[in-house]
């Protein structure tokens, strides 16, 4: 396992793609958050909503490069055929997938932390009045929102890895992942039955996971912050299990 991890980490750091994608995550997260904060109607008492959620809105965009990274970690090897080299060198396929997941987790944790802290900093700079109070890391709910958002990004990466391992194609994998993330919340809006809508928002990986960003009015959420992130974790685990099972049983 240690050697597989060392190999996967070497793979990750010896191509330019992952670094650029993580920089893309930082840039997308910070810039969208800054723009959203500057557009919001904020007063000294707040922004007519959840200031922490507003400052962290950039992950809606920032998760896209993370998803690409997660997909490419294995999808790219299927594209070039290098997966055979990998599996010839490391015949224990579960170990390979686990090593990939750990290497991905580490990279996204670093990139995601920079992105999320950058977004908070941007929020404080753009919203000096409302930001100083609501966007302090010493504030319990805000700290939970920040930490939870980094975890959310990691889980999105793992979800993407699992999907790509199952579909064995980058383009299809990214389509499935972005569909899961973006389309379910849109579809849920068209369902007029509020019970069904809340259920769908509880089940979807993005709407449930981003509940971890809420710092005010927790009672009105379809799902609690940590429970919501738990749903996203469930998605990541489920796709990794399916991907891992298919990786084990199929010919490479």
């Amino acid at each position, binding site marked *: 396992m240690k050697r597989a991890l060392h190999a996967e980490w070497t793979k990750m750091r010896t191509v330019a793609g992952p670094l650029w994608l993580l920089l893309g995550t930082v840039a997308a997260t910070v810039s969208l958050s800054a723009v*959203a904060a500057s*557009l*919001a*109607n904020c007063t000294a008492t707040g*922004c*007519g*909503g*959840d200031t922490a*959620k*507003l400052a962290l*809105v950039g992950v*809606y*965009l920032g998760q*896209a*490069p993370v*998803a*690409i990274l997660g*997909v*490419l970690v294995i*999808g790219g090897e299927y*594209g070039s055929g290098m997966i055979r080299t990998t599996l010839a060198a490391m015949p224990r396929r579960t170990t390979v997938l686990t090593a990939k997941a750990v290497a991905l987790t580490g990279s996204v944790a670093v990139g995601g932390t920079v992105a999320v802290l950058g977004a908070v900093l941007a929020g404080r700079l753009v919203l000096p009045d409302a930001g100083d109070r609501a966007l302090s890391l010493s504030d319990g709910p805000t700290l939970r929102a920040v930490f939870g958002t980094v975890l959310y990004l990691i889980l999105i990466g793992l979800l993407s890895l699992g999907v790509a391992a199952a579909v064995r*194609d*980058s*383009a*299809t*994998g*990214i*389509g*499935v992942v*972005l*569909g899961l993330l*973006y*389309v379910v*919340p*849109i*579809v849920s*809006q*068209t*369902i*007029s*039955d509020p019970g*069904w809508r809340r259920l769908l928002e509880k089940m979807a990986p993005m709407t449930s996971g981003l509940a971890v960003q809420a710092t005010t009015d927790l009672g009105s959420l379809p799902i609690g912050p940590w429970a919501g992130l738990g749903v996203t974790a469930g998605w990541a685990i489920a796709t990794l299990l399916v991907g891992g099972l298919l990786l084990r049983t199929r010919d490479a």
Partner: protein
Amino acid sequence: MISVVTSRRAGQRVGRDGFLEVLHAEWTKFRTVRGRLIGMVVAAMLLLLFAVLTGVSSHQKGAPPVPIGPGSEPVTDSFYFVHQPVSDNGSITVSVSALKSSIPKGPGDLRPGLVPWAKAGLIIKQSTRQGSPYAAIMVTGAHGVRMQDAYVNDTAGPPGLVSGESPRRLRLDRSGDMITGYASADGAHWTKVGTARVSGLGPTPQIGVFVASPPALDGMGTAGSVSTAVFADLRVQGGRADGRWTGDQVGPRSPTFAGYPDGTSGSVTGSDGRLTVTGAGDIAPAVRETLPTGGTLREILTGTFAALIAVIVVGALFITAEYRTKMIRLTLAANPRRSRVLVAKATVLWAVTFAAGLVGAVLAAPLGERLARSNGVHLFPVSSLTELRVVCGTAALLATAAVLALSVGAIVRHSAGAVTTVLVAIVLPYILTALPFMPASAANWLARVTPGAAFAVQQTLVDYDQVASHYTPYNGYYPLAPWAGFAVLAAYAVVCLAAAAVLLDRRDA
């Protein structure tokens, strides 16, 4: 010499510029990869699947019926009405000396507030049945005197607010079907505001004063409001009336009326022609926010988002797969005029995606509508021409998005990057507009400048100046006209295709 002649003949045989042959080759390439055809079928199926899902997941059976206006559009027709039946021609006058509104800020916490479209005035209406024809003249919270009829017609009269020092006198004259509204500041000089022909008033229409108070905009949502008006000198001249005024809430339970704020109710007090009337509701066309249980064609075609993913993946792979397998070299060796290859690919892709999208939308729209109606959902009405536009527009949207993905794929030469770029550019703006803190100006800006503007082609809702509401993309109102929104996406696709053609020419294959 002979060889020169032969080669020219050969050139002529394959067509003047050989484009049809390139097109044929690309079509053969497209249809012989099973995954691409599956992708197209999946796109059509997703449209259908989500239409069925939307249709069956909505249950409005047993809800009170949605009031329908004379133009067969859903309307809000809930207000407090002090009325009596009056037959024959005649006129009615009143003086309005106050119109005050209150908005709840919390449970039991009612604060005075401005409701721009709070209404108090005179109305002649066929009956107290919701949706029946009427004409009315009124003072409003912030839009001066207005004359309105048939729910959708609105004519501006003299501006200004009313108060005890400067009351506003209003008059309605009836002559058969013709109703004329007047306004006056002093009771001596009358200004004609407008005339309306109201057919179907019947032999004894109800006539009287009314107060309505629509929900006020409150952040991203709306808050119910209640308004109170003071009327004086209520007189009926001509016509046959029995002289007894009755106060009633028209349409107390209605899908288009959210009810009174907690602790308030409609009422009338006073006598001798001086009345204090409290009311809530509106007499106006229903919009998305006032009829939240209503359905739209756009919602039935919500599968467009899912179908987009399928066609974008197919579109991007149509070129990136050639780069991955290096087949692009063979393609370009066979057709050295590279931009023509790209145009041929785009043409084939657009046509195939349009066909798949059209099949999906043509089946999905009527099926979803039927299912929704059978579950008691009221659908905002669309003309058959509009339905045709939505269906064709949906297919065109999918096809153009696929071509955009092809172009981006040719530029970045990487499938995952191309799919993500295009999908995020089209879908993310829509999600961002739905965020609670996104102001309407930002949402409308996104719906103008991003490729997501193309969803305007699916809009079927009409916005009304006389109804205060959030006319945002989230609620189904787009800042651009349907085809103008589509043109934004088309412009992105054309620009990217041109850039891709230039790069394809300059770069080594």
